[in-house]
């Protein structure tokens, strides 16, 4: 039986500024290992807000969040940082690479932070990830000197460096043209099929969502189908 890597129980969230508005209500779902899940919905339905809660970056919510069957409630900020470092890989809409570093260094950073392997090993692993994604020729370039599609692939390599439990994406193809979107999608698909990588992708791109294994649809802060 497939094991649960991420579980949300009765998650509620409200914004209080300027007036109290409920953005998420009774979000309950779980993601199994190796699943390729997309969350869709119209702009403003709360899907990004949900993702930031699931990613532990937003701690201001009610309800229960379990990652790898461990509750994220009452964890200290440094512990949550460790969870993000170890178990979650991020891909954002805007690539968010550190322009001060080379491509290789960008990929290596979370690995160096985790400090599970020596610097040489992390470098080797980073090269391997870049090779898998077909961008190893960019390794020594500065991060601000590569194209948008390439940047997104570098960001995926970075998300993979610590062999995360789950990869979370916030509109990873939102800023890319059709060709690059397809490349990114194919990478995701390849990762789930070949490496049993769990994926949770927020997108409003219906054609993208349709090709994933499972779609969670949201409307006005509620899950309407999953």
């Amino acid at each position: 039986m497939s094991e649960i890597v991420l579980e949300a129980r009765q998650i509620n969230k409200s914004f209080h500024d300027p007036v109290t508005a409920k953005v998420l209500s009774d979000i309950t779902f779980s993601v199994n290992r190796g699943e390729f899940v997309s969350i869709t919905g119209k702009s403003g339905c709360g899907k990004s807000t949900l993702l930031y809660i699931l990613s532990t970056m937003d701690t201001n919510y009610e309800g229960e969040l379990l990652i790898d069957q461990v509750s994220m409630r009452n964890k200290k900020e440094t512990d949550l940082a460790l969870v993000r470092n170890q178990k979650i890989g991020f891909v954002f809409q805007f690539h968010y690479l550190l322009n001060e570093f080379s491509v290789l260094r960008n990929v290596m950073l979370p690995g160096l932070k985790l400090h599970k392997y020596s610097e040489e090993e992390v470098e080797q692993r980073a090269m391997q990830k870049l090779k898998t994604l077909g961008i190893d020729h960019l390794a020594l370039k500065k991060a601000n000197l590569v194209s948008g599609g390439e940047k997104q692939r570098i960001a995926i390599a970075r998300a993979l460096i610590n062999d995360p439990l789950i990869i979370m994406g916030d509109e990873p193809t939102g800023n890319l043209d059709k060709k690059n979107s397809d490349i990114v999608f194919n990478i995701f698909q390849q990762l789930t099929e070949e490496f049993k990588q769990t994926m949770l992708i927020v997108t409003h791109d219906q054609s993208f969502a349709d090709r994933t294994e499972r779609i969670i649809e949201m409307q006005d802060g509620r899950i309407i189908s999953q």
Partner: protein
Amino acid sequence: MINKLIISVAESLLMARWRQTLVAALGVTFSIAMFIALLSFMAGLNDLLDGLILNRTPHVRIFNEIKPSATQPIERDSAYANAHHFIHSIRSANSRQWLYNSGAIIQSLKKEEQVLGISPKLTAQVFFNDGSVEITGVINGIDVNAESKLFHFNDYIMAGSAADLTKIPNSIILGNELAGKLLADVGDVVVITTSKGEQFPLKVVGYFQSGLKEIDRTQSYATVGMVQKILNKPNDYITEIQVKLKDVNQAPALAKRYAKIYEVDAEDIQTANSQFETGSSLRTLISYAVGIVLLIVAGFGIYNILNMMIYEKMDSIAILKATGFSGSDVNKIFSVIALSIGIFGGIVGLITGFVLCYIIDQIPFSTPSLPTITSYPVHYNPTFYIIGIVFSLITTYLAGWFPARKASKIDPVIIIRGK
């Protein structure tokens, strides 16, 4: 390893903005250099001014003061023990100015461990005869060797030689103002008249300049034996013993002890010259205040640049946090940036400060009152350099503290959503 990572991230952030970083570091450099140059110069000046008086002043002076007895006869009378005494116009019965047993006191002092050296002295009030005019003056009888060794007597001799005082009988060294008034060159003879009316012709073997006009106008020096002869006193007659100690700070305590042991008056240098101490400490205080203000201004510069850097690097901070760097890691990164600006700027500042001191030290400076000084005085003291670097680290750390705290509190969600 984690620290190595933090340092490498800090380094790249620094290098990405190396121009601003350089300006911030230059601010620290400038303030440290000025701090050191200012303090060294001020300390040099203090030494010079202290030297003007304190080098020539004995640490403890032993003498007999003419004063009325502390207990008057009436107070010893038991019949009036509880009465209030009205006594007016008390006279000093004991008028001896010389030190009894001076030989024994000197022998005993020489055995003391804290004593560096001893120089006996006696003074005679005389008139210098210049044609029909008489000029009042003082002849100090000194032990030339001890005086040169302990109180730098040689440094102030402008013409002639101090050693000639001992070699040539009936010789005298005049203050240069006094010599000018008497039109006496080295080799000339001046005639003095003692208070008892006796006249002595003395040969001028040199003149000195102390830097204090009042002294140069009235004082002159001869050997102890010569002055005893002028005063017609025996050869154990001296009025003062000058003691130089190994540690000047012990002077007050020792002065009290000597006064008790030898039943004489003893005055320490701190009491005699308290105004110099005050002047020195005030000047030092002012230089420290100016130096610290400079450093604080540099600190604000660093604060500004780090703040700007944080606004520019919001995205980077957000992504670092999203990929697993905790708030305290981000805090450390910015503290490292601030401290490395402080260390780099500080060390360059120390070197620049030293070079500045060296340059000041080379600028010619001569004043008639200080014959031994040829360039601006600078005091090289490692303490200033230590204070400078420590203070630069403290200010840069504090200047980095607030921006670093702010950076560590950045919420990655807001930045990432805000795009």
